[in-house]
């Protein structure tokens, strides 16, 4: 397989992972207006849970689901008992989530040491698939398919279900939504837990591909930020497009200009901020 094709496949796979990370971030930040600086930490902690389970011989999908469920519980608890008390106060929320991010990164370093963990790709997901005469690594394709399924599921949930309508109502006008009988607080805990679970799921999916190491949290957080700045906060379509854009820029940038990979990531963000500050698919918030 040629270099370009490998790069393209890797880019799409990274794009899929970034979508798992940033869709949750976009929901939490865009819909609930909570600047969740521990989102990268959810990704990393989820990945560490996943690799620990994998090392004990747990099935890959089961490990990913258990890790996502665990992170949903942790995220839900933090939202319910700490962030809830700071509703609407963004600076304290920033400091609280940042504080947790530091604690999680240090605890992970303590528990899982400084060495990177890279689980083997699960046996049934190894190998290649032949499409149109070209061979693709199966696992990369699986990541993309999973991301696509989750994207469609999220879109259906937010735009087409009663739950989604209640979430949107709670976001647009929480007091009125409460008056008509929507339990906004519970919904917000649910969204936060969902975002945390998606990040953890992404972390486990990414583990055989990116490996898990200290510092992964603060490497993923700015990527999620850039994706959301590019795509527009609160827009799932924006998160999807932004993820693949950043996936491509990151991989191609690193292959072609390894020294300047970060500058290349910076450029589209700069353009978007100057030309269209609400992001590609963001709506202008009055």
């Amino acid at each position, binding site marked *: 397989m040629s270099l370009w094709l490998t790069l393209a496949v890797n880019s799409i796979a990274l794009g899929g992972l970034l979508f798992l990370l940033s869709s949750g971030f976009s929901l939490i930040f865009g819909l609930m207006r909570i*600047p969740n600086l521990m989102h990268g930490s959810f990704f990393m902690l989820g990945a560490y849970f996943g690799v620990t389970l994998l090392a004990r011989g747990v099935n890959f999908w089961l490990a990913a689901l258990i890790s996502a469920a665990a992170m949903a519980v942790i995220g839900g608890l933090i939202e319910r008992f700490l962030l809830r008390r700071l509703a609407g106060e963004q*600076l304290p929320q920033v*400091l609280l989530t940042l504080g947790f991010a530091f*604690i999680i990164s*240090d605890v992970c370093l303590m528990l899982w040491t400084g060495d990177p963990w890279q689980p083997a790709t699960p046996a049934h997901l190894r190998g290649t698939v032949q499409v149109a005469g070209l061979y693709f690594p199966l696992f990369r394709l699986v990541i993309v398919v999973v991301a696509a399924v989750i994207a469609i599921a999220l879109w259906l949930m937010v735009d087409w279900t009663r739950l989604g309508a209640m979430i949107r109502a709670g976001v647009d006008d929480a007091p009125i939504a409460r008056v008509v009988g929507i339990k906004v607080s519970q919904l917000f805990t649910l969204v936060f837990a969902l975002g945390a679970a998606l990040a953890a799921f992404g972390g486990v999916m990414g583990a055989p591909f990116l490996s898990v190491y200290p510092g992964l949290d603060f490497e993923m957080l700015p990527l999620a*930020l850039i994706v959301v700045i590019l795509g527009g906060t609160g827009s799932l379509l924006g998160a999807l497009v932004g993820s693949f854009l950043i996936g491509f820029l990151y991989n191609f940038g690193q292959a072609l200009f390894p020294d300047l990979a970060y500058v290349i990531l910076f450029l589209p963000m700069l353009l978007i*901020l100057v030309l269209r500050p609400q992001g590609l698919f963001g709506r202008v918030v009055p």
Partner: protein
Amino acid sequence: MTSVSTRRVLIAFILVALVSLPLWVGNSYYINIASQILLWAILALALNVLVGYAGLTSLGHASLFAMAGYAAALSLAAGHNHLTACVTALVATVAMSKVFAVLALRATGIGFLMITLAIGQILWGIAYRWASLTNGDNGINVATRPAPFGISLSSAPAFYYATLITFLVAVVTMATFARSPLGVSLAGTRDQARRMTALGYNVWLIRYLAIVFSGFWSGVAGLLFLYYNQFISPQVGALTTSAEALLMVISGGSGTLLGPIVGAAIVVIMKNVVSAYIERWNLVLGVIFILIISFMPEGLVPGSVRLWRAASQSVRARLNGWVARPARERSP
């Protein structure tokens, strides 16, 4: 009137204490810690211009701080003298803060914070990954400290005095800035941006100037940091450093002149003490953030001032309880 003269006496006392510090401290380890406190206080004061007076929270200030250090270190490595290196570093940092300002001011509030965080992480990434320029994780060493006017700064007390002079200039500049028309209108844009616009103030320009001013002093602090350690590595520009600087501002009390200085002292002393016992500084940092948010959101200096006033007033009330006095209102 008494409060003004008390204040003058207090300031004079602190000045004498600071100037004579190397004499009564003696041990160069503690003199170095004092230098660290002062240089971090400059960064905290610079960040306070944004957090306290402008109401704009930046989580990317460490990258400006580190950028000044890197620019000077690279310029020295290229064979320039210290003066050229420092000037280059400050020019580069001011230029970067202009870019910072233009981009981050596309949003306010939390959007501002997110953009500064993203830019900060990208600059950190450049320092870390662009190894052919920055030497990557190994960092850059600087062989000598400068010798302004022929006075070598290589000893701990000499460096302390250089830092102290810079610090005092920074404090006076910050105090002047806060009282200047620009500083007052900056506070106006923090409290009532729309009214300020309606009154004809250019809110964007005021904020832009504040960011550049803050960036300049972050650069000065970064230069001191470089010369203090004679070494710089990407870690200096990492999010942890930005968060530490923010902790200094907030723990001491943002929007005051004394707060960030006290905050810097607390964080530096605590970091040195904690590091002596355990290597889990990040954990401690995180716990402190959460504790401050939960129990003392206003910061230590305003909190203590409030408590002290309340206590002294109650004492005074008890002493003069039998004398009927009009209650003195104090603005919070």
